[in-house]
């Protein structure tokens, strides 16, 4: 039996403005590879991950994927960030190599072609759940939406607005802010005069705390909801009491809900002395090598050649994967995955689970 490693690629932003997530996610994937190999690899063969930097820039992403496909000859690779995922999709489809999007959530990703699959629920899943929870469970009538003016902000805000309206609520303010701005007073005052009863913020970890801080200082007392960007202990630390009542979502179970996750978090604390940036995303990345290992195992067992085409077939055939830190993954025929959405509310300075929306 050959000991030749089974290779797959990972193209993530390791530098640039998105590196704060990309680097931690890459590290999680690295750990998973180590763990799998420590347990004997896949059918006795070690797994090998080739990691490349994209800076979340589509052009560099294409370079990286070209290299993965043509030099490293991997049949499957993971990548993230919507613009990169979209940019490299034509390359994947043409070369018939399986592209797994892990973390990008633009709803368009489902329609990028035969070889593009996602392991991460698209934005409509969690943001919809947020809107639904606000409208149906909390019985909010008037929502205000604040969003950062970039692709994920725009798309996310639209989903929230449309869902909230569908459910009979009113969106009384819908304001964008520039990615570079640090003063949100104008937008917040508009929200204040619109008299909303819940404010949904579709921002990034770097600006979200500032938005909320300024909002509280301006005397806006409404409940705040956001998506997984807010599910970060840093946010609580920087906001203190101002974070109370904030509702955040996560698409992966927390340490309390899953013992593997608890171990995972411990590992971060032990090796890095901190919690990872964007914990749920790193969970997905940690699980990616396990998914790839399952695909390889399937092909090796059935004796099929290890090509991208067969990888894709394997993904569709296996369909259901049981992954360590994110639980069951079911790949749909529509290239989407459905996952439960875990909602938390900040109570006494801690994220407290309030609901799980299936």
């Amino acid at each position, binding site marked *: 039996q050959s000991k030749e490693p089974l290779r797959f690629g990972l193209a993530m932003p390791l*530098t*640039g*403005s998105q*590196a*704060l997530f990309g*680097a931690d996610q890459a590290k999680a994937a690295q750990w998973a590879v180590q763990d799998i190999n420590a347990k004997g690899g896949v059918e006795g063969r070690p797994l090998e991950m080739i990691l490349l930097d994209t800076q979340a820039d589509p052009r560099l992403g294409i370079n990286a994927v070209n290299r993965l496909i043509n030099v490293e000859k991997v049949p499957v690779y993971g990548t993230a960030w919507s613009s990169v995922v979209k940019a490299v999709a034509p390359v994947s489809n043409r070369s018939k190599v399986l592209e797994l999007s892990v973390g990008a959530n633009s709803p368009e990703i489902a329609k990028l072609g035969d070889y593009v699959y996602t392991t991460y629920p698209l934005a409509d899943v969690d943001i919809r759940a947020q809107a639904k929870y606000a409208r149906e469970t909390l019985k909010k009538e008037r929502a205000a939406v604040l969003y950062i*003016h970039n692709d994920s902000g*725009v798309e996310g805000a639209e989903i929230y607005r449309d869902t909230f309206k569908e459910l009979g609520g009113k969106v009384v303010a*819908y*304001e*964008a*802010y*520039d*990615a*570079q*701005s*640090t*003063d949100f*007073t*104008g*937008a917040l*005052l*508009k929200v204040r*005069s619109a008299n909303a009863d819940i404010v949904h913020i579709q921002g990034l*970890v*770097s600006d979200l*705390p*500032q938005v909320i*801080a*300024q909002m*509280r*200082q*301006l*005397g806006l007392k409404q409940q705040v909801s956001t998506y997984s960007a807010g599910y970060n202990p*840093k946010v609580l*630390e*920087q*906001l*203190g*009491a*101002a974070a109370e009542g904030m509702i955040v979502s996560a698409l992966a179970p927390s340490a309390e809900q899953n013992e593997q996750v608890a171990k995972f978090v411990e590992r971060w604390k032990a090796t890095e002395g*901190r919690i990872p*940036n964007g914990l749920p995303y790193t969970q997905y990345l940690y699980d990616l090598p396990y998914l790839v290992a399952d695909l390889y195992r399937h092909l090796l067992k059935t004796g099929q050649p290890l090509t991208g085409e067969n990888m894709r077939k394997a993904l569709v055939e296996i369909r259901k994967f049981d992954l360590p830190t994110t639980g069951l993954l079911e790949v749909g025929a529509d290239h989407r995955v459905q996952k439960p959405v875990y909602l938390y509310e900040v109570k006494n300075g801690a994220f407290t689970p309030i609901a799980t929306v299936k």
Partner: protein
Amino acid sequence: MIDPQIVLQILWTGLATSTYAVLFAAAFALVLKVVKVWNFAQAGMMGIAFYAMYFAVHKLGLPGYASIAIGLACTIAAAMALEIYGLQTFRRRNSPSLTFFIFTMIVSEFVQYVLSMIFGTEPVSLATSLISPAHIVGGIMITERDLIAIAATLVLMAGLYVLLMRTNQGKYMLAAADNPQLSRLYGINIKRVYALTFVVASILICGGMYLFGTRAALVPTTPMEMMIFSVIAALLGGMGNVFGAAIAAIVLTLLRSFSILVIPSAWQSVVLYALLFITILFFPKGVSFKRRPRPAPATPTQPAKA
């Protein structure tokens, strides 16, 4: 339906937010005016200033003023290294001005990579909490941080004014800005003047970074993004007119803050840039806060060569 209270609130917070932009724009304009360099390495200096202070506050547990001192020392050291090992070399070789431009830009990128290697890429802030005690004055929310920021900026800018207008060193800077080669014949040590300029710029930058770092969290790439704004302000203020740049920074910040009242928020930036474009087209003189008209091109001096 525009409520005066809203206007006043936006005005006040806008002014407070513009403080660090003012300092960065002034620093950029000062170096542009005196040293004649588009100092894109300013982003690098901003990064160094911030992370040095961050290290002092969070890792060494030093109080505010001590960490500012450390930040200042690091920034000045970096600026001196840039001037002595970088710019002086290019100057000696008569490199074209765009070489300086590219060099400084690459230096910023370099610093950014080094910082992200040392400090990682998660957003960090100088303050542990982003919330600052606030007072309501006549319906307007005024935070203590806003007050400190505005006061500190006023002090720094006044100091800069005194330096430039009232001291010999300031006169040397003006002379060097006008004609460095000739200045030497009046006993002015150009290298010293340039060094001093960088020191002053470092002080402005460090002050600005402290103000910014206590109200926001940043990552190693943030300074680069922020610098573009200072560059625009420095240009609008009249190509290297220090106080013009400061005023332009305020105007631009306020414009950005106020535009949300009249324009759909998604179109804000477009309107801001369109305004920039149009202002220059129709009021080319209006945007430059120059003290006096430029001399007519009738009698130029011969290009001085070293």
